[in-house]
């Protein structure tokens, strides 16, 4: 899409809407059927979604992902080994599944990061994660600049990173701040307060306010980033989410219980049943709607148009403005920023 009015934009641009002249249609043309055509195409091809979960061990990351996609998609489900030892260094484990709903196929990849934040010395434990994310960008870049490239480049880039905050009730830990500072520039980070059933309602809202303030003070732009709001409608919607709901305080569960005659996902304790999808109990439903029902496509777009473009620009700059030509020459330039 060419820009009719060239604007100096420091960042790689999201294509602007072309200036349009509103004309009255004399009859029905059928332009609106393009939506239906796109829908059919998407249903045929399906789409990729890669979600990464980061947080200390035991915060319920795997359970939450299972609950989000209502199926056993996490690493814990695939490995039958319940007796897990904390790995000595951060590992990256990616598990892919194909899930289908309403004729739409989604190739979902869940990337887990066991070992993050669990050691005594956690300095630079985010480096393997940053490296992995950049490697995926590199893979995509290589495919893109190939002379004979595939029709549909397999997209392994991380579209969304859920960062699990421990519900201490006090404030963010230094590790949380360091991780988010480093990674909010390369990937969409959605901070999530884990195991929120540990806090009462007042503690929860106090904690959320404090976390929001700390993130702001430290200049951490989590998704949805303010600078990428396209128009007023987006801005108001996202502002509301940013300032009131985020970070989402969630509870995950893959067990069902009977409550008021319905089967609900929840946690059964001697003092009551915590319903995962009950908005009075926790904000899981908000997170699910946000990630899957309203912002899924936007997450992918921001990853492709902004984060990937930033990486690409830097790579090309380092290379003197030239694209990395062949696969062999590629290998020698192994400098990942």
């Amino acid at each position: 899409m060419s820009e009719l009015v060239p604007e100096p934009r420091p960042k790689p641009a999201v294509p602007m809407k072309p200036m349009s002249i509103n004309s009255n249609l004399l009859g029905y043309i059928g332009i609106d059927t393009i939506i239906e055509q796109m829908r059919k195409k998407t249903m045929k091809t399906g789409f990729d979604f890669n979600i990464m979960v980061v947080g200390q061990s035991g915060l319920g990351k795997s359970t939450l992902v299972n609950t989000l996609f209502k199926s056993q998609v996490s690493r814990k489900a695939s490995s039958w080994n319940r007796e897990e030892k904390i790995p000595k260094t951060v590992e990256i484990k990616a598990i892919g599944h194909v899930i289908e709903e309403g004729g739409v196929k989604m190739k979902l990849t869940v990337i887990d990061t066991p070992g993050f934040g669990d050691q005594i010395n956690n300095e630079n434990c985010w480096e393997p994660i940053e490296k992995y994310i950049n490697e995926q960008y590199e893979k995509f870049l290589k495919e893109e600049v190939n002379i004979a490239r595939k029709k549909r480049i397999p997209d392994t880039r991380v579209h969304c990173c859920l960062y699990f905050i421990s519900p201490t009730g006090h404030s963010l830990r230094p590790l949380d701040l360091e991780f988010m500072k480093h990674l909010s520039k390369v990937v969409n980070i959605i901070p999530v307060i884990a195991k929120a059933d540990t806090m009462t309602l007042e503690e929860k809202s106090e904690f959320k306010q404090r976390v929001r303030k700390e993130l702001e003070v430290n200049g951490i732009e989590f998704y949805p980033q303010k600078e990428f709001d396209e128009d007023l409608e987006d801005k108001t919607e996202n502002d509301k989410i940013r300032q009131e709901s985020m970070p989402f305080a969630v509870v995950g569960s893959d067990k069902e219980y009977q409550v008021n005659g319905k089967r609900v996902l929840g946690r059964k304790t001697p003092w009551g049943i915590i319903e995962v999808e009950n908005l009075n109990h926790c904000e899981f439903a908000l997170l699910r709607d946000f990630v899957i029902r309203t912002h899924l496509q936007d997450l992918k777009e921001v990853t492709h148009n902004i984060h990937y473009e930033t990486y690409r620009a830097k790579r090309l700059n380092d290379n003197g403005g030239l694209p990395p030509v062949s696969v062999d020459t590629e290998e020698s330039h192994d400098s990942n920023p």
Partner: protein
Amino acid sequence: MSKQQPTQFINPETPGYVGFANLPNQVHRKSVKKGFEFTLMVVGESGLGKSTLINSLFLTDLYPERVIPGAAALNTRKTLLWEKIERTVQIEASTVEIEERGVKLRLTVVDTPGYGDAINCRDCFKTIISYIDEQFERYLHDESGLNRRHIIDNRVHCCFYFISPFGHGLKPLDVAFMKAIHNKVNIVPVIAKADTLTLKERERLKKRILDEIEEHNIKIYHLPDAESDEDEDFKEQTRLLKASIPFSVVGSNQLIEAKGKKVRGRLYPWGVVEVENPEHNDFLKLRTMLITHMQDLQEVTQDLHYENFRSERLKRGGRKVENEDMNKDQILLEKEAELRRMQEMIARMQAQMQMQMQGGDGDGGALGHHV
């Protein structure tokens, strides 16, 4: 019709009964007068509810005759909303005098804010270990001193180690810390914020922790078995206590209305967690254990940990260190005196040389040459 003789000198009726079975009562009366001292240390990451639990343990509003002056001192860090948590470990000790039915307890709670918060926690328990050692050192010093009448016992008698309920067991930091102090203090592991866990999760976590403690050979405090002459209730209670270690607790000082009466607890949209309900958590068990075994905790600290420390200290030449302390000033004075002496000597020698030279000149000058 014997007149009322002074009753204290009548021979007791039972033959062969001397009366020294009364000794424990005398000891009891003396101890009650003297009062008890107890030092409790709490260690754990921030946000695990340590301060709340300590307040809940000792700040009961159920006993009106309890006198608690300065109890606000125990509410240390809960109000620090915007302050950054100090990244180095601090030691904060607060003392409170509690009295119940004439028995005085001088309780010191040692808090350790900053533990486990930094990105690199390699050194975070050095401060804690040196504090514990310092108290032992001070006691050793007082004990070896001339006036031993009023030794204040600030040694740490018990350490509550708070384990996060969010993990799958012990973290590497937990293991490293407990191994570093299990020979210095009685460790009582406590699972914090237990209302995060369902019953099954709680059992699994407890078992996991016990397995890991055994695997790493960590010596936690073991409740002594009930003596065979104790009553059945006490034996049963001890058995229950031993089976529940590590205790999973919830702390709170808010009164919530539940089932028609006011209880201490936490109010959630899905129900109320009652602090003092044994089905909800082990708070009562923890408190019972602490109260009934306070004496034993002190004994083990004295007989085991302190003796360990003492023998190692003395082996290392503890006496020398002690004397050094006392004589440091003396040594300084001595060294100063020596310095002065040497300076005087040098001055004298210089004067002598001067005189010799002058004498030569003078001789030459004044008297001329002797031929």
